[in-house]
């Protein structure tokens, strides 16, 4: 506070910092105008035609399209294909998530500060030293690998892996595994960085080695959260796995793409229903397992 110190300064009322409501200022209005202009610019940039969409003509078209979707095609051949796609989608998401967990677990211990170069485990080491600097190298490398894995979207990974290993569900698994590996690595890292220090300290005071501290002090603490995050990402992945087929990576997406391209609307509805059932089932399963773990 820049107010001059008075005799009993506790009695002076501190000036409120910002947040005084006194009607809109010029700055507020300018910000508002800027946001509005941004919105208008976006409206035209994104070629939005809301009025056209809500006109009788195109609403009618949408109604016609919806009518075409019904009734869903439940003939045995289509049902069998939908079931096959559903199981394949499940398999892709399952294997992809497992692969992601493996990737995340093999990287994350290098990517959390308190395990690799600072904090309780290393406080007895000299502050400055080549050893400490050398420890930073794997840390930074691991962090940037995780960042790269995470930043490239699953669909782009899928495109890349389709090029590398050919069409089919396998590139889908790889795409999910690699991208989700990056995401889980970040989430796991955050969990590892705020573990409770007390058990670690008491282990340390009994002379446990670092590996022992990791196994008995840190892992038991973080494991439930690791599992919970993995299950959460599995829920996300089942949705992604359902559409990876659009770029040629198997699962229900491939069949949806075919159904839409060939104007087979009734089959499309069957496949969408399959996605709906699969996603809902996996949500419940994952919520159930999470309750078991936490």
């Amino acid at each position, binding site marked *: 506070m820049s107010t001059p110190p008075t005799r009993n300064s506790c009695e002076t009322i501190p000036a409120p910092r910002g947040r005084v409501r006194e009607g809109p200022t010029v700055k507020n209005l300018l910000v508002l105008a800027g946001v509005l202009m941004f919105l208008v610019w976006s409206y035209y940039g994104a070629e939005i035609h809301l009025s056209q969409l809500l006109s009788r003509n195109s609403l009618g078209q949408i109604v016609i399209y919806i009518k075409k979707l019904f009734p869903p095609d439940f003939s045995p051949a289509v049902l069998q294909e939908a079931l096959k796609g559903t199981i394949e989608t499940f398999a892709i998401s399952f294997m992809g998530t497992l692969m992601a967990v493996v990737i995340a677990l093999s990287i994350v211990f290098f990517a959390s500060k308190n395990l690799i170069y600072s904090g309780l485990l290393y406080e007895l080491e000299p502050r400055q030293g080549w050893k400490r600097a050398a420890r930073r190298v794997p840390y930074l490398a691991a962090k940037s690998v995780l960042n790269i894995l995470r*930043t490239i*979207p699953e669909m782009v990974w899928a495109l890349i892996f389709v090029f590398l290993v050919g069409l089919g569900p396998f590139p889908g698994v790889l795409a999910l595994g690699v991208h989700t590996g990056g995401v889980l690595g970040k989430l796991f890292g955050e969990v590892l960085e705020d573990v409770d220090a007390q058990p670690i300290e008491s282990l340390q005071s009994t002379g446990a080695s670092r590996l022992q501290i990791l196994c008995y002090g840190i892992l038991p603490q973080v494991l439930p959260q690791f599992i919970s995050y993995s299950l959460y990402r599995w829920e996300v992945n089942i949705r992604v796995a359902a559409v990876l087929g659009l770029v040629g990576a198997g699962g229900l997406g491939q069949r949806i793409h075919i159904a839409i391209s060939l104007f087979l609307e009734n089959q499309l509805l069957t496949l969408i229903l399959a996605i709906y059932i699969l996603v809902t089932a996996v949500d419940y399963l994952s919520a159930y397992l999470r309750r078991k773990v936490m």
Partner: protein
Amino acid sequence: MKESNPSLIRPSDKSFFPYIFTAFFVLAFVDSWRRADIDPVVFFEKKGQEALWKFLTGMFPPDVSWNFISLMLRPALETIQISLWGTLIAVAIGFPLGLLGTHTLAVRGILNDAELQGAPVRRGMRYGLYFLARGLLSLFRSIPEFVWALMFVRAVGLGPFPGVLAIGVAYGGMLGKVYSEIFEAVNYRPLEALQSVGANKLQIFFYGWFPQALPNFVSYTLYRWECAVRASAILGLVGAGGLGQQIEISMRMFNFNEVLTILIILFMMVAAVDYISAKIRAML
């Protein structure tokens, strides 16, 4: 987590659950391995290694010629525009449906208890609305945005507009669900206080309910906007504008250096949006 540790030794855990779970897990693993055609050997074979090598060497150096970058500028801006309007439409869909899908706002709670006491027909109608809203939200969010995009491309033609609609509908479902959770979690004391001074329902909503929910509300919407930027960047893969279309073109033409450039642009865009939204959130 400390609270959960004692629960690990509760008697119900001595059940068959671990065995059943392990059996299920192993079965799923074996079956999925077969079904997903998993074949890690590919990367050690000559063909796979050649493809990998071709891809990696093709990426560097990234294509940073002004010619190409100026060509990417418009799709990049388009991506931001799609995400912005997509999120706006999502709010427009999610907010009303979220309100109707909030148990304490639509059917129970202090707003309705007095009114619906002994009026089973009205209560039934309210429940009807409530379940309709919940069902719609769940439908909207269960169909992935890519499938919405494909359908909207059919309905309104190629270009960024179907992307906007796809994000609007899919994210509307997600926002609506979270909004209703936020509305359900408000503190009821202020609402009761307002009611006891004779405020009507709208007044209770705007002076008691909404101000409590607003910070979470804005923060979650911003988070969804960040997701929308990522999503709209790749919706182009199915013909809905944005950078995705360019990525697919470059991939199909095996111009991997262009792919790298686009990925770098995408990375910078996402980082910028994350930064902006973090700034706005810090102001709340």
